[in-house]
Each structure stands twice: as structure tokens, then as C-alpha cells.
């Protein structure tokens, strides 16, 4: 049976969450802020995650250019209760992950890079 793109994306997100303990939610959104696929716990607003994730990445890209910091690699927001990790997936999509504060950041960065490569191959 041929898997849909949606199935493939969900599988990759699933693997990412399995490989990195403390990942609580993930979403792939288009650069215009619309959700393509997501694995979110109840109570997390999918529409807001999509809009804000894409906007944060876009502002970061723009800031990197304006302030001459070169190509932006990732955005990591640190809060009291955890992290928000955002990365480009090719030119048209964005990966957003909500992660607990007990995560090992090295593992998060490594797996995130692999996840983005897999997602890019699908999209």
C-alpha cells in the first residue's frame, strides 16, 4: 500500500519523538504559517503553533540578514519549563518542536538535523 505524504511525515515526527526523550510536541508548518502535519497533545492550539513557529523563523532569518549574522541555522527559545526549537525544512516548510527542560541539547540538535533531512526528502 502506498503511504500518503501525510503518513510519511507523521512517521518521521514519530521517530523523532521516540529518539529524543522529552520531546512533547512537534509540527511541520508551511512558511506561511499553516500546519502540514503535527503531533500535538490536547490543549495545544495547532493553528497558533503554526502561525507563531513560521513567524519566529521568518523574523530570525530576517534578523540574521539585517544584522549580518549569516545563514540562520536554528532558533532555540529557552523557557522555565522547556524549549521551543524551530528549524527550516527546505525553503517551504518549518519544523517546530516543544521540548521539556530535561532534554539533552546535543541529542536534540543531532536528531533535529536528521529529522529535517528526512522531512526535506519527503517534501
Amino acid at each position, binding site marked *: 500500500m502506498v503511504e500518503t505524504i501525510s503518513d510519511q511525515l507523521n512517521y518521521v515526527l514519530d521517530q523523532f519523538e521516540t529518539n529524543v526523550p522529552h520531546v512533547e510536541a512537534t509540527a511541520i*508548518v*508551511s*512558511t*506561511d*504559517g*499553516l*500546519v502540514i502535519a503535527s503531533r500535538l497533545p490536547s490543549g495545544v492550539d495547532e*493553528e*497558533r503553533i*503554526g*502561525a*507563531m513557529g*513560521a*513567524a519566529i*523563523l*521568518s*523574523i*530570525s*532569518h*530576517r534578523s540574521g540578514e539585517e544584522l549580518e549574522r549569516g545563514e540562520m541555522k536554528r532558533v532555540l527559545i529557552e523557557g522555565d519549563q522547556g524549549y521551543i526549537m524551530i528549524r527550516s525544512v527546505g525553503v517551504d516548510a518549518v519544523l517546530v518542536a516543544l521540548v521539556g527542560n530535561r532534554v539533552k541539547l546535543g541529542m536534540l540538535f543531532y536528531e533535529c538535523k536528521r529529522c529535517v533531512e528526512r522531512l526535506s526528502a519527503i517534501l
Partner: protein
Amino acid sequence: MADIHKTVLERDLNPYHSFLASFFAGLAEMGMLNQGSINIVSKRAAEYLFAYLEAKDILPDLTQYAESPESERVEAVIDYLNSILSLMGGYHLEQTGPNQLALLIAGKQCRICPKGVGGAAIEGTFCPIPNFIESLVNRITGEETLDLITPGIEKEGSTCKAVYQLS
């Protein structure tokens, strides 16, 4: 500036159109607004406009449409909204399937387009109208009359299209 002058005259813009469209455009160019966020913001704006219409006691009277098809009631609300907000110079509602209604706006008829009027140099679509109309029609009719199917606006040639499911 020549193009802006042409757009102002061609689309018969008022000062608020220019302000809104260029304001949205500037925020989008800075990366602060995208289609996803303008969808959310549009719903919020619809709530405020509904409260405004209530406060002024100028909500449209829909009693004459009680026995009419849903599409006629929706058209009456959109006509009313456009008469007070002047969002579009013209538009067309088309039945696109069973219980589906498409709002079609010819490219040069939209007066608040962040790209066409506000000059936003961005990729993709960026339109506040589909979600704004959905939310406000639902508030005014008091039920979930419209459910937006398209993620925002879709381009068909030079026409912009939003498709809704009727309840």
C-alpha cells in the same frame, strides 16, 4: 510611487484601505505576520467588529431570509459587511458543490490586499478576508453557517478564491 498612484485610482481606495494594506504588508515583510497569523488575527478582528455593530445597533436584519436558502442569507450578510467596510470593489459568490460556496474576488477589486494594494514583497498568499468573513458571518447568523475549507485564499489566475462549506 507611480504604481501606488495607479492602484489608488484603479481600486478606488479610501485612506483606511491604504493604511491597512500597507500596515499588514510592512509586518509581513518583517516576517511578523504570515497567512497563519493573519487567519488568527482576522478572527479576533471579527469579534471586535461584531461588538461594534452590536453597540451601534446596526447588525443586519436577517428576518426576511428566515425561509431562504442558506446561501442567500450568507450573501446578504457579506453584502452588508461590504457596504459598511468597502473591502471589495466587487465580488461574486458561486455554488461550487453541494453546500459549498466560493467567494471570488477579481484581482483588482480587493481594496485591502497586502500584496496588491500594500505592496508586500512576500511569497505565497496573505489575505485577511476569508477568515474574517467566516467568523463575522457566523457571529451575525448566530450559528456555524460557514466553515472555511481553503487554508486562506487561493489564486485562480488573477482571481482570488475562498471556498466555504455551508452548514
